[in-house]
């Protein structure tokens, strides 16, 4: 297992790192959900975060999305330090959380139009995405009548609606069948060309997608290495 902390080398004078953490700590009461986590991610690259339940993966995504404040250490996202410059980051990240962050009594079209207005995005983009995620025919049905997979597709449309530079994806393929996963690939997959931080419980699938792998155990970084240098057994060890 590779020993953290480590950083992914970025070319000197090159573009600003998509994510740069140094000693990041976040607590819930007395319990540290993240403790002394440090890494950096170059733009356009994909970091996949592994770790057992309660390891701090979702908390990490919420800190990067500016929804939670760091309690110690520094966190820079797209070159802006959090939480002070959070305003400069909002609207440039897309968070796919466990919850879809959509109103169940509204239809996908109503939800996306609402989000589009908040982000200053044209209504045409909503129609484009409804087709892209394959729910155009049911775009006016209330979300509470949808299967989990259909809700997840709508959530993906919400995440990329404003064309974010950084995607924060919490188990993005949960509830998706293989065809739906393939359909969403251009939006949130490597082909999207965006910087990505993804959480996963699938060692093989996650490593295939990753440029860099981060393993969290008990809120601490237990592994940080280029994905090519990590095997599934090392990821499996995080769960023991």
């Amino acid at each position, binding site marked *: 297992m590779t020993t953290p902390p480590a950083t992914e080398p970025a070319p000197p004078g090159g573009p600003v790192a998509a994510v740069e953490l140094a000693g990041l700590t976040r607590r819930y009461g007395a319990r540290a959900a993240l403790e002394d986590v440090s890494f950096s991610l170059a733009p356009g690259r994909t970091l996949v975060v592994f770790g057992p339940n309660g390891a701090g993966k979702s908390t990490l995504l919420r800190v990067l999305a500016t929804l939670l404040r760091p309690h110690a250490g520094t966190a820079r996202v797209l070159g802006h330090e959090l939480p002070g410059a959070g305003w400069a980051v909002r609207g440039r990240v897309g968070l796919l959380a466990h919850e879809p962050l959509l109103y169940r009594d509204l239809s996908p079209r109503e939800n996306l139009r*609402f989000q589009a207005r908040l982000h200053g995005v044209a209504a045409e983009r909503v129609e484009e995405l409804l087709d892209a995620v394959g729910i155009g025919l049911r775009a006016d049905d209330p979300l509470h009548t949808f299967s989990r997979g259909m809700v997840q597709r709508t959530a993906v449309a919400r995440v990329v609606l404003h064309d974010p530079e950084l995607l924060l994806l919490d188990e993005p393929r949960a509830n998706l069948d293989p065809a739906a996963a393939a359909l969403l690939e251009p939006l949130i997959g490597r082909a999207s060309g965006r910087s990505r931080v993804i959480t996963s419980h699938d060692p093989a699938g996650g490593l295939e997608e990753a440029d860099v792998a981060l393993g969290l155990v008990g809120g601490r970084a237990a592994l940080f290495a280029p994905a090519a240098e990590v095997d599934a057994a090392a990821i499996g060890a995080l769960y023991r």
Partner: protein
Amino acid sequence: MRTVATLLRKELLLERKVPQLVPAMSLFSVTTFVVFHFALQQRSVDGDLAAGILVVTLLFATILGINRLYVADREEGGFDAFLLAPVDRTAFGVAKAVTLFAFLVLLEVVMLPAFAILLLGPGMGFEVVGKLVVVLLLVNVGLAVVGTLVGALAIQTRARDLIGPLIALPLLVPVVITAARALSPVLGADGAGALEGRWLGVLGLYDLVFGLLAYALFDFLLED
């Protein structure tokens, strides 16, 4: 203003598609008037008693509304989705206050006729209605502003159904007292009495102070 309009539109769309707050508050207020109608065993009420019944019923109906004001946002992730958008966070509070104000106006459209039929003997003349509207608009502003603030505070806690009323009731006592004082002569037995400017002034001052307070604090209530 564009963000407030967007949020307001969403609130009204949600209530139109799945009516919850206005029907619940309306049903509560009408039921309360029915209870008073039979419990008091009087053909009609007037003055202090009538004003007290009207204002207290409005207060408790508002508490119902406050408790549900943020539920969809909290349970369905609307809060987080909003916080991820590059917009002024205070807009959320302004939109909620305007929403609650609009719902209170709709509630009063239902509750005032019910109040007149069940508890006011000769009914309400236009003069009474006009004065009631003036006072209730000022009352609604206070209820909406404090309700928005308290609702945002309570929704962050697990015991939100308890916390909301426990904080809101003491804060709203001045509104109840002042509104009842203002309405007592209006609902007098011998027709519409004069509205006293000092009570309207107190209500206006309350609205201003809590409006400014809510504007200053709301952003922090949404913060982690």
